[in-house]
């Protein structure tokens, strides 16, 4: 079946986007292979002097890199980080992440919209991480976002789809891909999100903190595929027991 995820004109067969943090570098390749991952995020940091190990050396061929702007506290910093990431030379994708709340680490939608607008104009394929707010999502799309990445729950919390109802609204109203990011703790939660009609899942902590990291990557791949297929199949009807209305509403109709 031809069911591609299309972001900024690029096609993907996989709907599992991997956050690459918290893994030992040697595991990266296995997790990506087991997960069927075609896109993985990276963060930027100051480079130490000397030819130290680099995560790029552990990324399999053909994987699309999605640098994030983690550490940015406002639009200006996000733009600076994105430009630096592009200068390393790994394509035009960028995940905007603006957080200036150190307690809950919730994204700042307002600053994110501003950064989206600037970077989209510079030719970036912009994927903003966001709190699932319909108005903000519309602003991001109007600003040129190629996808939106609403959080399911506070980052790293593994709490699952706490924002379910609001993500459903985005699925209904927003035309660019919806990628649930942050908070997904179990494959079953990823599966449920996919059944709801979101286009892809990004997970990191849930895989990285499993006892068997490779096996968990496989599990997420299968769960995401299952949810996607269920969504495409159209969930079966649920027969509900309904008492016959004592006075039907349609009794007045004529001709």
């Amino acid at each position, binding site marked *: 079946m031809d069911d591609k995820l299309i972001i900024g004109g690029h096609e993907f067969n996989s709907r599992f986007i991997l956050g690459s943090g918290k893994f030992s570098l040697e595991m990266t390749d296995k997790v990506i292979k087991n997960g069927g991952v075609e896109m993985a995020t990276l963060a930027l940091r100051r480079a130490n002097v000397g030819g130290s190990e680099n995560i790029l050396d552990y990324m399999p061929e053909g994987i699309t890199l999605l640098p994030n702007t983690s550490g940015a506290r406002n639009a200006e910093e996000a733009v600076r980080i994105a430009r630096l990431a592009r200068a390393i030379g790994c394509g035009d994708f960028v995940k905007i992440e603006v957080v200036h709340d150190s307690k809950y680490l919730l994204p700042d939608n307002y600053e994110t919209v501003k950064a989206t607008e600037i970077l989209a104009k510079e030719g970036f394929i912009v994927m903003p991480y966001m709190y699932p707010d319909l108005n903000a999502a519309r602003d991001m799309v109007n600003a040129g976002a190629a996808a939106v990445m609403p959080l399911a729950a506070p980052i790293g919390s593994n709490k699952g789809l706490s924002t379910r109802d609001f993500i459903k609204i985005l699925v209904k109203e927003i035309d660019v891909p919806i990628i649930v990011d942050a908070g997904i703790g179990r494959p079953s939660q990823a599966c449920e999100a996919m059944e709801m009609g979101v286009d892809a899942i990004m997970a990191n902590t849930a895989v990285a903190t499993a006892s068997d990291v490779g096996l968990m990557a496989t599990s997420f791949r299968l769960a995401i595929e299952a949810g996607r297929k269920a969504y495409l199949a159209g969930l079966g009807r649920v027969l509900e027991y309904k008492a016959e209305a004592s006075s039907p509403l*349609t009794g007045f109709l004529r001709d």
Partner: protein
Amino acid sequence: MIKVDRSFSHMEYVEGMEQTPHDIMDTVLKERAEYDYNKYTENDVRRALNKEFADVEDFKALLSPAAMPFLEEMAQKAKGITRRYFGNSVTMFTPLYIANYCENHCVYCGFNCYNKIKRAKLSMEEIETELKAIAATGLEDILILTGETRSKTSVEYIGEAVKLAAKYFKLVGIEVYPMNTDEYRYIHECGADYVCIYQETYNPDKYETLHLRGHKRIFPYRFNGQERALLGGMRLVSFAALLGLDDFRKDAFATGLHAYLIQKKYPHAEISFSPPRLRPIINDASVNPNDVHEPQLLQVMTAYRLFMPFAGITISTRERAGFRDNVIGICATKMSAGVSTGVGGHIGEEKGDEQFDISDPRSVEEVHQAITEHGCQPVYNDYVRV
């Protein structure tokens, strides 16, 4: 001003018509052409009824013949949704026809330019007298109508009438010829907040054969009217197909999709539907599957409700009192009262002939009482203009 006749392509703009993007029209026409309502099954309808929000696919199923046996369930569900979004309130309004001159030849319409009817146009003094008489009944929401011709009823004339109406009414709408954005902006500044435009049919080929003369012949200009009204600052836009002119299921689908896409593009827009129908010929031996009987009309109205829970639905005085009084509890949220479709006519003699016969001639007071008796709350206005 250019005279448009049959030699004009109905799909091309004429001079003076503002052109806006065709994205929504292209989608609606394509989807309408591809909508095959016979492929939907009982299971598709059940699935749609089970969902919290009906999507476009569900809307198609709900408008299909397969949904007819589920009309009672659709009505039950629609009633719950209407209660949730509108409480039990029903807004009352009345239309005021201030002129019936028309340049269009629409083969189905009583106002069309070849019909030998009494034509008239109210002066500002006459309009004010009518407005005062209507305001005295307690109504606060008024719809100003004309036939469609700029030569007899200019934008300035309509603007002046709107200014007067805004003096006596809290909410003023217009149902006149489609205008350009700057003209809508002017009418909005005069005091109008909503615009009704009926597309009649969303089948362009059929449209061409029904609209032989006049500016209305130009399909895309009419289609994009709601969008221009919103760009001009109007708050609410209303959509309608005259059900029965062409395949009513396809036209009802296109109407809903048109409104849906407008709301998607302009999230602040308030949306309303009117479901007028051509009545089938009763006792006709050849039963036409596309005839719109009362059950089909209710199907369309409840499908609109399930697809667009927040949209207003206005029920016409073309329908009998018994139908109107029952659908307000289920899906309709707005109904007219004390209606005259002739020019003027709210005091003494009508100056010009009627557009169509009405089936519910009740006064404001009678309609008020009927709404109350059906467990709903009559509302005269729920809007403060700022």
